[in-house]
């Protein structure tokens, strides 16, 4: 019993980073932009939030939790928005290829994160590992009382506020996509920008807004990982392949953020399943960690074979739209 509770709780802990990334990428892809820079943006968001908190804690004689959380959120969102803006500027305004820009952004972002994560303490004149315990305690804070209830407390309330934000964000984004005018028009832009344009929708503005917002969500995923999961410290290449899993999750979720909630928990579970299966050799454990990708590939093939139009990637995904080409 305890093991299962633990397993579920850990799966959800693993899921949140991917959920942020996937929700952001769904919004982005709905506008027709395939942003393969998500893994890089997670690094950028994570390190920026960490640096913000670090310099605040270092500069303030008695740092407060609330200010620390606020500063790190602000830095994270600003930096990842800038990264998204860069992507959109290059792909929409300068019409560069989305795959190429996305991959370059991932290279850059990964380097950016690892570089500052590795050298920030040295640059700041300190020594050793950087930690922002005060700020992290804010991210890790649980709801008092509720989280002490056995089982339910662990499974439902054993998380920091960003976890709930991620789930809420997924629900809100789904609502926006399915039930609002903005969501409808965003879908139209991603499906057929020429038709959307003819209907009087400003295609460029939608693409910019969706991609920048999507990047900010991916950045939050990075911040969650650094602050809540790692407890306010930097692990080199610590994100592993979570960024790409987020991109994979978009496919699994069939471009619906609420599906990404279950999907991310499934991925999280598959990600750590090997720990809970007794008698696995270390080698076999590694094979187990392949599962999320294999599942994604199967879903990708199955949807392309079944060919239900709603389950397909947005029609114009990865393509640039230029009005005069019409």
């Amino acid at each position, binding site marked *: 019993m305890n093991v299962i509770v633990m397993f579920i709780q850990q799966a959800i802990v693993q899921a949140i980073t991917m959920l942020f990334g996937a929700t952001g990428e769904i919004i982005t892809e709905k506008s027709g932009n395939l942003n393969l820079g998500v893994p890089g943006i997670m690094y950028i968001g994570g390190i920026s939030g960490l640096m913000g908190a670090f310099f605040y804690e270092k500069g303030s004689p008695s740092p407060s939790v609330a200010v620390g959380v606020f500063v790190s959120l602000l830095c994270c969102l600003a930096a990842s928005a800038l990264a998204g803006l860069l992507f959109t500027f290059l792909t929409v305004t300068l019409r560069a290829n989305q795959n190429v820009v996305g991959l370059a952004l991932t290279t850059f972002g990964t380097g950016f994160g690892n570089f500052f994560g590795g050298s920030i303490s040295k640059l700041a004149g300190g020594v050793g590992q950087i930690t922002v315990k005060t700020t992290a305690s804010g991210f890790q804070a649980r709801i008092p009382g509720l989280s002490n209830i056995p089982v339910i407390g662990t499974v439902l309330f054993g998380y920091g506020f960003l976890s709930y934000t991620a789930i809420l964000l997924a629900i809100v984004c789904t609502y926006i996509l399915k039930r609002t005018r903005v969501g409808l028009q965003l879908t139209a832009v991603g499906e057929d920008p*020429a038709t959307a344009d003819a209907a009087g*929708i400003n295609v460029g503005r939608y693409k910019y807004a969706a991609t920048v917002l999507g990047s900010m969500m991916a950045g939050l995923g990075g911040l969650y990982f650094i602050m809540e999961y790692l407890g306010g410290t930097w692990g080199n290449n610590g994100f592993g392949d979570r960024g790409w899993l987020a991109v994979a999750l978009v496919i699994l979720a069939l471009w619906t953020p609420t599906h990404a909630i279950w999907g991310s928990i499934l991925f999280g579970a598959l990600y750590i399943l090997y720990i809970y299966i007794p008698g696995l050799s270390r080698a076999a454990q590694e094979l187990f960690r392949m599962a999320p990708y294999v599942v994604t590939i199967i879903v990708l093939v199955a949807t392309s074979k079944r060919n239900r139009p709603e389950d397909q990637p947005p029609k114009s995904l990865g393509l640039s739209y230029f009005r005069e080409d019409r």
Partner: protein
Amino acid sequence: MNETAAIELKNVSKRFGSIQANDHVSLTLRKGEILSILGENGSGKTTLMNMLSGIYFPDEGEIFVNGKEVTIRSPKDSHALGIGMIHQHFKLIPILTAAQNIILGLPGPQRLDMKKIDANINALTKKYGFEMDPEQRIYDMSVSQKQTVEIVKVLYRGADILILDEPTAVLTPQETERLFDVLRNMKSAGKSIIIITHKLNEVMEISDRVAVLRKGKYIATVDTKDTDEMKLTEMMVGEKISLDIDRIPPVDPEKRIDVQHLTVRNHEGVYALQDVSFTANSGEILGVAGISGSGQKELLESIAGLQRIESGKIYYTPKDGKTVALDTMRARQIYALNIHLSFVPEDRLGMGLVGTMDITDNMMLRSYKNGNGPLTDRKAPRELAERVVDKLEVNTPGITTPIRNLSGGNVQKVLVGREIASSPAVLMMAYPVRGLDINSSFLIYHLLGEQKKRGCCVICVGEDLDVLLQLCDRILVLSEGTVAGVVDARTTTKETLGAMMTSGKHVQEGRKADV
């Protein structure tokens, strides 16, 4: 009937390069009437209407809407004036529902109250007698349902003046009837409607008045009740024009292509061809006449092995050889049998050529497999490219220029040059002179004549009846996917052809949309 004009065009002209699409056209749409605009392909109907819908801007002339002079710069301006156009190609997003497509781009509260929107749409559809489920997704719809969505979309935006561009081209007779009922309802509700068409029976059935265009010029407007199909045909096709095309009698004609009971459905599941039978002979030019979209494309692609055939047979009999069935073969297999079957398709850059490649590489498309071994030979194609450029007077900086940088006429010359070069046994051409100037056109006619003299079996799909009558030996007339008849080009008149093309009567039973 209210006698003031909903739309009045005065001396409107539009040129595209060297082509005069509309030449000082003046016409009037009265309030609350249905006006048909009648004309052959290329007579400038759609261009004229696109100036009302804001897609083109006229070179000269004035437009009045409800008695006031207006400038229509964009589709938005057109909307604001209450003009709504239903294009032939629908602008709908397949994964969205009808209702979602209808409200796309409209202002309103953020939260979409689909119940309320559906109710509004249902009220509208009920008023005019449409059958439409607002919650149905577009990809689940038949062509006629999609058209209904387009019409409702325009009405929902408050249009008083509706322009329908060949709305019945994609409809079955039953669907056409239903559309006409709706149009009559809209008329009695005070809407003014323009319907572009070239089907005479429909003109007679639906419209109050008919405006006829011919080769970009306005001919006349007549009251439908004062005219008949014969008179309209005369107005539409005009006097016979002599073109001075050299035509020799057929050269030793013998059967090459024998098509029997060919039936083809397009990807929408609608019959594109039904029970088509004919023969094409060597040493003669067989013309194919018909309103655009009557199955010409599918016919040629079936023979070329590029179309899935539902039933029927296509036989090819080579000179001194054994007859083979082509209907089960793909283009690849036909090629492998060394059958010299050349094809100049309608969509030149989309099917016949590769736009990003240069002339030499495009020449290779038919011959690259020649020779043994894994290597291509570029010497012969290069020589061919030079020959074609030289002989057909292709205007290009050189043979290494990518095809897509050439003008339409020059692209066509490259394509025709390549297809003729292989000394084909059968040469199929779709709209060989579309987009070409007079001199180039005559060059192509001359080349076709040469192929005929050589003993080639030429099948030529055309749109200009004058040309077909003076170029071809026999003409196969298609009407809505069936054979309306095969006539002798030397003795037939334009009027007969026009009437056969637009008859569309004997096929009404056959065409059904099972989607």
